[in-house]
């Protein structure tokens, strides 16, 4: 893979449509970078439909991504404007997000050994971000991406904020992310409370705990709970947990499917996994570990990312040979983009 991609739109050939992202602000494609013959992901934001604030959000995310450099954070390889689209070139993450993998293959959760690999990578990424005074604020399975070789990257940086302000490392941050409705279930009680106490980078550690439950249980805690009740539960210190034989109670959250419930009730997660999740979800921020402390947790000792593809069989990545074939979708999207450019009643002025 080359370490530099160009900003010439004609060097990229779109192969297939992957999906929408950023609550439909962006469309995501797999494309071939012709000079290097490599596959990449193209994220296109159709600027004409965006408000000024949304354009700012897209700009800020790209600029931030260009200033980060960590193997477990999704890099922006290049970005340019073509027509009226802002295009970001991203590496192809063949397995998609952890949420995709859950949805398609693991309704009751991803195997524990795979989760250890995933969490380890995310904690490395968090530890880097925190050392750079950045709070991510949107840790969740859909923002954790996996490449065909098992390499793991964190994305979703548009929700992040800085701890350093006015030349000082702030003890607490108060700003509430503006476009965060979709992430509420993952956020920490102290962030959601929005009180004078504020929050700090350990808020991400709480979200990591929620994400661990999401990965292990197949569904995010509180998925069907009204928002206010979810908030009340978190503030009271009731925390989500891994569902297995030690914690399962009849009527516990789950997909409702009998077979799924049986699997959950019979399985057993290791003590160290339970311990990691409990410490991440500690209500009292001062007792919650920092991301760099978490790196030493015994649960993360045994894993290596190269074994990840074997651990998540039957999930399979997109590769050059298994691109999703959706020519029809692709054509209809392209056609509707062209429609937007049709001129209706051309006026001509007399100068």
């Amino acid at each position, binding site marked *: 893979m080359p370490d530099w991609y160009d900003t010439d739109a004609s060097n990229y050939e779109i192969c297939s449509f992957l999906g929408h992202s950023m609550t439909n602000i962006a469309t995501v494609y797999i494309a071939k970078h012709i000079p290097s013959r490599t596959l990449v992901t193209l994220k296109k934001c159709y600027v004409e439909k965006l408000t000024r604030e949304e354009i700012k959000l897209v700009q800020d995310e790209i600029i931030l991504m260009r*200033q980060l450099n960590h193997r477990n954070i999704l890099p922006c390889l290049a970005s340019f404007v073509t027509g009226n689209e802002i295009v970001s070139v991203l590496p192809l993450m063949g397995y998609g997000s952890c949420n995709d993998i859950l949805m398609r293959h693991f309704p009751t959760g991803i195997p524990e050994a795979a989760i250890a690999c995933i969490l380890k990578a995310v904690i490395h990424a968090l530890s880097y971000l925190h050392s750079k005074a950045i709070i991510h604020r949107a840790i969740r399975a859909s923002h954790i991406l996996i490449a065909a070789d098992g390499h793991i990257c964190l994305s979703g940086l548009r929700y992040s904020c800085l701890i350093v302000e006015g030349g*000082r*490392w702030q003890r607490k941050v108060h700003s509430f992310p503006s476009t965060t409705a979709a992430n509420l279930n993952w956020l920490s009680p102290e962030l959601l409370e929005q009180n004078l106490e504020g929050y700090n980078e350990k808020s991400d550690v709480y979200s990591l705990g929620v994400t661990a439950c999401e990965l292990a249980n197949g569904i995010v805690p509180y998925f069907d709970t009204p928002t206010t009740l979810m908030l009340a539960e978190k503030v009271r210190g009731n925390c989500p947990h891994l569902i297995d034989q030690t914690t399962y109670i009849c009527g516990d959250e789950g997909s409702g499917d009998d077979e799924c419930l049986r699997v959950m009730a019979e399985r057993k997660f290791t003590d160290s996994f339970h311990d990691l999740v409990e410490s991440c979800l500690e209500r009292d921020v001062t007792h919650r570990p920092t991301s760099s*402390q978490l790196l*030493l947790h*015994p649960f993360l000792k045994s894993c290596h990312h190269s074994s990840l593809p074997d651990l998540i069989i039957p999930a399979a990545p997109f590769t050059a040979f298994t691109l999703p074939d959706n020519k029809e979708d692709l054509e209809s999207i392209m056609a509707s983009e062209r429609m937007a*450019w049709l*001129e209706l009643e051309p006026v001509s002025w*007399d100068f």
Partner: protein
Amino acid sequence: MLLTSSVSIKMPLFGKSQKSPAEVVKALKEAVNALERGDKKVEKAQEDVSKNLLLIKNMLYGTSDTEPQTDIIVAQLAQELYNSNLLLMLIQNLNRIEFEGKKDVAQVFNNILRRQIGTRSPTVEYICTKPEILFTLMNGYEHQDIALNCGTMLRECARYEALAKIMLHSEDFFNFFRYVEVSTFDIASDAFSTFKELLTRHKMLCADFLELNYDKVFSHYQRLLNSENYVTRRQSLKLLGELLLDRHNFTVMTRYISNPDNLKLMMNMLKEKSRNIQFEAFHVFKVFVANPNKPKPILDILLRNQDKLVEFLTKFHTDRSEDEQFNDEKAYLIKQIRELKALPDH
């Protein structure tokens, strides 16, 4: 909790940093010198630069578990930085410093820049005597690998009128018209933010600058409005509207709306395919129509297109029914255009 036992590890860097400001600055300067000379031990020099930069950054900002140093230490540090000429050296060698170190340079620079003693800003005064710092930073947009770091520092500088003045009145300012259009989107966006900050932050300074350099600025600006890059066109058109409608820029506005070529451009942009561009163009077009003393060439164009304009505006963005101000303005323009009369012949 399995964790509590392992909590008390300390990062060695924070643990025993008893170096005095003078010592750190000296060590950093030596490392930057080695880096500049390009000795065979470049990696060692890079490492030393990064290590000392991090020490300085943590003295200034503190970290998640340490407080920043006392004001006296920070004052000593600033004084050492001025005396050693290190700020300029760091910026001149920015491309040689490794990735994270570049960001640390920007953070150290921005922190030192904000220093105040009463109402004085000693670093701003210092940079006024060394404008080369500003020119080197502006030139940073030429280089992909340091452009964003330089942008961060430039915008912090632009907050101070004295520094903004030096930048605006330098020949290098006109390079921004090129930077905001480079093909790399993140750099172009960043350059545009800096460009906008320089042209809008200090109202009187900006008005003076625009008046004094009217021809040069607007001939360059014309190119942005005609750019092939959609984002550049949309952003520069919006900024033009803001500039013309700012009351400080009254003289500039009067001059702009007296030129029939500018009116033609806006009328053409009104019927661009992009609705956002149409909308931004409307906010510039309205100034031409609302002008109570329209010069003859302007009036002639409006008269020649009187009926077309009325019809066009009547159908223009009718779906914006929520936007009261826009609808009032549109109704006002239609009325004005309808009532236009040719000047009596003499």
